[in-house]
């Protein structure tokens, strides 16, 4: 399962960079192996969970804005998708940014150093964390569409939202 999540995120690897991806795969600079925590799995699971909650709410929760005859238009579904995406975007950003700022990312992934240990170049930047947030937005969207396709059919009021 952890591999599947990681592979989904890696579809967008060009956005947030290979080094951040290595960190998220759980690469350990000290052991030079992937024995760290697989953060793709942790973040992916949360993203999946949040998407699932919002999909279930949209199709089944008897509350205005969710399973309701006036919010079964495609754009209502899209709004919920965007809200879910924004929440997952912020989780992606905050998680990686927190690790970035607190120095949790291994040095070998952060910098290229010369023989004296001087930094030649930085490999992961703050913007990569923001771009990972954007990636999480996209992944959230994939999950939301996938889960909508599964759960919509038993909804009373929204079963044909957004399509079919």
């Amino acid at each position, binding site marked *: 399962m952890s591999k599947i999540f990681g592979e989904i995120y890696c579809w967008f690897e060009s956005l947030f960079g290979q080094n951040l991806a290595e960190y998220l795969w759980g690469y350990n600079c000290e052991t030079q192996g992937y024995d760290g925590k697989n953060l793709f799995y942790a973040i992916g699971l949360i993203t999946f969970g949040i998407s699932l909650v919002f999909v279930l709410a949209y199709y089944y929760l008897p509350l205005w804005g969710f399973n309701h005859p006036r919010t079964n238009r495609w754009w209502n579904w899209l709004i919920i998708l965007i809200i879910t995406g924004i929440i997952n975007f912020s989780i992606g950003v905050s998680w990686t940014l927190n690790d970035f700022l607190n120095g949790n990312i291994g040095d070998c992934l952060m910098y290229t150093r010369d023989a004296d240990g001087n930094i030649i170049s930085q490999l992961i930047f703050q913007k990569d964390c923001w771009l990972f947030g954007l990636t999480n937005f996209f992944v959230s969207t994939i999950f939301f569409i996938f889960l909508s396709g599964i759960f919509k059919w038993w*909804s009373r009021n929204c079963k*044909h939202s957004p399509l079919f």
Partner: protein
Amino acid sequence: MSKLYVFGIGGTGARVLRSLTMLLAAGVDCGVDTIVPIIIDRDISNKDLSRTKLLIDDYIVVNRCVDVNGTNKFFKTKISLLGGNLFLQLSDNTQQFDKFIGRSTMSQENKALVDMLFSKETLDLDMIEGFQGNPNIGSVVLNQFDNNDIFKAFANDFIDGDKIFIISSIFGGTGASGFPLLRKILHTPNVQDAKGNSLAKWGLINKAPIGAISVLPYFIVESPPEGSLVNSDTYIDKTKAALSYYKNEDKKIDTFYYIGDTLTSTYEHHKGGNEQMNNAHFVELAAALAILDFVNHDTQNENFHRDEDNNIIETTYKEFGIKTNLPEFTFDNLTDKTRRLIVNPLSRFMLFAKYMGYGVVEKDQNGKKKLIVEKINDVFEKEHKYQPYAHKLFTEDFRKEDFRKIDSIEKLESIQLKFVEWLLEMESQKRKFTPFNLLSKSATDFIKGKLKIITPDNFMYKNWAKVDNELNKQIVKTPKSLNNDSRFIELFYRVTEELINYKN
């Protein structure tokens, strides 16, 4: 398959049949499977009659498509026409009364007698517009009920267990004269057709359960212009005279209903014909309820008193009343029995009509504000694209006229429009029956009065969203085997039944 043959005599007969059709469309319980309306009127061109005919024609189309074995009660009772004809064809259509009686060929003595019995205006009367309030003419002309083919189809169609009901007004011409003559011929043994053959099953007709309603004055007409014989000043006298004659009907009718109203509306003066189109009145609705009471399974013990030989031993007389004598009244003012019968059906059908867009708007016409029935808030049109209940079933083309299929939904909507018009007309009378706020665009506050009829809005679903939510819920419970039109009506009945459920 029990049938009730309803003879509607004259303009009042046609108007009561109009109300009856509206009640049946709304799904009021009827104790028989089929109603066979038969209109007897010389004035075939009168508008009351033609619009009743159009309504019944539409009803028949919708009734054919509904699932009679389902939950649905809208249009459930079948209306069938004798030989496809609503009117009883009178064979002699001579238009001028003196020609009808053959005055010109009479001997001098007979001519003198006729001149003594009938005024010159009466003899010159053009009967194309009916008897214009003259029962003395009607009783002569309608005597052609005898020795004729006009009852042939009726006799052929009649089976054991069928019932007969006669609607007539007592204060006009056709109804007042037609009722006793019709009753007499129905009880005449061995009626023969024009060729002299006895009509089959006429014996069954002689002994059939028979009810009648006599409508006493409930409206008056404006002062008559010169040349008109219709004069409402004579209504009361005519009523008294006819009532004293109707004493003879005792023990010849199983149940005899009377209805009238002292708070009379004034109608424009028309002799008849195309211009005679009176607004619907609650009295006509109540008269239609008498027909339903006559065949109601629960009232059979009080309505029929017969001996072992099936002879009537006692006539039951019934009158209709409302709880409070008010010029304007709602469901609140009806008795419990009437409420049980009509509150749910009328409210449910009204909600259905409103969903399809039919309501009343106030418009300026020639500087005058006028209430008009039209499509004002077509919820179906707005919502069918989004709601699951309509998905791939009730789509864009669903309502459109299509020569390739029977347009039952088009006819249904035509009846819904007429239903709202009918309600609006009842509001225009001096005795106003105003159960609904016809100007309301809401799904939940359109029923007037204090009765708890409609389930209130909840925090989740309000107004039309509540109806759509129920439609989306109920669609899965409707049989998929039904065709679209039938399923649509079944669906709306289930939904309105869920939302409107008055119990007393």
